[in-house]
């Protein structure tokens, strides 16, 4: 029997489980930082965190609010800067897994974090790429975290900020991209993965209580549901660590 948990908690745990012990992780602002901190405290104590603002390999005690936060430096091996993070570490091929968020995610895991509608005068303007486009291109593989609604999961993003599998097949390699591409999209409804070769998306799991058909209904492109299992719920230990150690304030995991 597992304890009750929120969707964000489930997502954080699912994302954390994408990290393997010993990997070097490029974590972005938000749930990725929670996932990385959780992974370090559970199955991947040897994973190394890298932040684009310059923090390298910290042993964080308190959740950072963003990747530039002083909290990313506690016990850190290095306090460097953007040049070191982006060139020596990311582009140098030293990042195993990168975490990305985004306002829109499309069929091939391409992400829009720039604008919806006309680019020059959009209906919604977002923060912009930050390092996301770079992580998407250059990390060994990426994990995407997103809110799952039909308008946020279109066939094609309005603006391709961060490259996923581009148009599927070998289109990513043909675009000249060297890094690995999206391994998983952890959403508010389930976990999507991509077929080797074709890079077509399939539903790997729906979250407890969510039907695969509901996930498809909230998705603007066809999703192979044939292998959809149920996302394993958080363990009591994972929830305990998340709530009491990783984000006791509810900075990202609001509890009210």
């Amino acid at each position, binding site marked *: 029997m597992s304890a009750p948990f929120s969707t964000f908690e489930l997502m954080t745990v699912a994302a954390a489980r994408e990290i393997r012990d010993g990997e070097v992780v490029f974590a972005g*602002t938000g749930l990725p930082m929670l996932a990385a901190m959780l992974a370090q405290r559970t199955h991947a104590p040897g994973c190394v965190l890298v932040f*684009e*603002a*310059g*923090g390298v390999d910290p042993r964080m*005690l*308190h959740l950072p*609010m*963003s*990747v*530039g*936060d*002083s909290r*990313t*430096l*506690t016990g850190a091996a290095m*306090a*460097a*800067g*953007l*040049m070191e993070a*982006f*060139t020596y570490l*990311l*582009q140098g091929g030293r990042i195993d897994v990168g975490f990305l968020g985004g306002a829109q995610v499309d069929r091939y895991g391409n992400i829009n974090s*720039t*604008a919806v509608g006309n*680019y*020059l*005068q*959009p209906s*919604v*303007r*977002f*923060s*912009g*790429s*930050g*390092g*996301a*486009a*770079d992580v*998407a*291109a*250059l990390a060994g593989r990426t994990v995407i975290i997103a809110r799952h609604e039909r308008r946020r999961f279109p066939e094609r993003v309005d*603006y*391709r*900020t961060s*490259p996923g599998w*581009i148009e599927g097949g070998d*289109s*990513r390699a043909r*675009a*000249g*991209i*060297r890094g690995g591409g999206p391994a998983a999209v952890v959403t508010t409804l389930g976990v999507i993965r991509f077929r080797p070769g074709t890079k077509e998306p399939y539903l790997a799991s729906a979250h407890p209580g969510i039907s695969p058909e509901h996930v498809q209904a909230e998705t603007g492109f066809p999703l192979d549901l044939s292998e959809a299992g149920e996302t394993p719920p958080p363990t009591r230990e994972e929830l305990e660590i998340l709530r009491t150690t990783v984000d006791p*304030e*509810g*900075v*990202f995991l609001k509890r009210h």
Partner: protein
Amino acid sequence: MIDKVISLEEAAALVPSGATVSIGGFTSQRHPTALLRALVRHGVRDLVVYCHSAGSDVDLLIGAGCVRRVEAAYLADGVFAPIAPNWRRFVEAGRLEFEDYSNAAMMARFSAGAMGLPFFPVRSMLGTDLLEKEGLSAEVRRTDPTAAPKKAAVVNCPFTGESVVLVPAIRTDLCLLHVQRASPQGLVRIEGQEFLDVQQALAADRVIVTCEELVDDEELRREPERNRIPPFAVHAVVPVPFGAHPHSVHNCYDYDPGHLALYAEAARSDDAFRAYLERFVFGPSDHAAYLEAVGGPEHLETLRARSGLGYNPELRRRP
């Protein structure tokens, strides 16, 4: 001994309307906000602002109508403003010229400027609309000398044949930084992450540094490994304690959650933001009065960093 110390008002007067300016720091950290508020008070207009990951530093300048164009990768203020609010409003309303790059591309552009190169190569942005879509019109590129002739160029490596993206150098008239410590002679000590401050400084013709504390040049020369900006590249030094508020300065103080929330709320409309500017920028006659307006010494003490951590572990980020 050269003495480069000037006042905040003198520093603001060094920034003319129409200047190209880069601003140091990263999202909610170590931006020279006291200097930016002074610029707003001075009525500076038409700035071309270059940054990478900005927060309510650049957002303030946008909302106050000081900015003609922003070239950036990201504008947000942590959980308080996942999208910088004035930035969002001004772009959606077509009130701002802008150009989007990734953070690595902005890093590369500033590095090119700092290194005396006309371009810098990066491997990212291939296969994205960052390459396909341009914010600046052909007309602007032709007529505005501050605009790069092209957004980027994809070339084949002459050695391996691989596709590589070249991005154009940024050189600015001015770079504005806030750091923990500086000497009157212009030697600068950054604690915690460097962000892109060194490259931004060296890509500028003139560097103005505001600092929490003025210290003896000799003291900073005792650890030359920790100084990354040559003093002869720095033109002016301004001691401004709490000069990055409401943002954080590693080892000095944390960001101010209450003020960031208040800012984010105010910047959602022209009217509310005008009131914010009245209350916190035009109203207070100087930086000391600003610090009073945001809560005074008692409040600021609640932000103080704990030694050994660099931030305040007691800080509550959620109300």
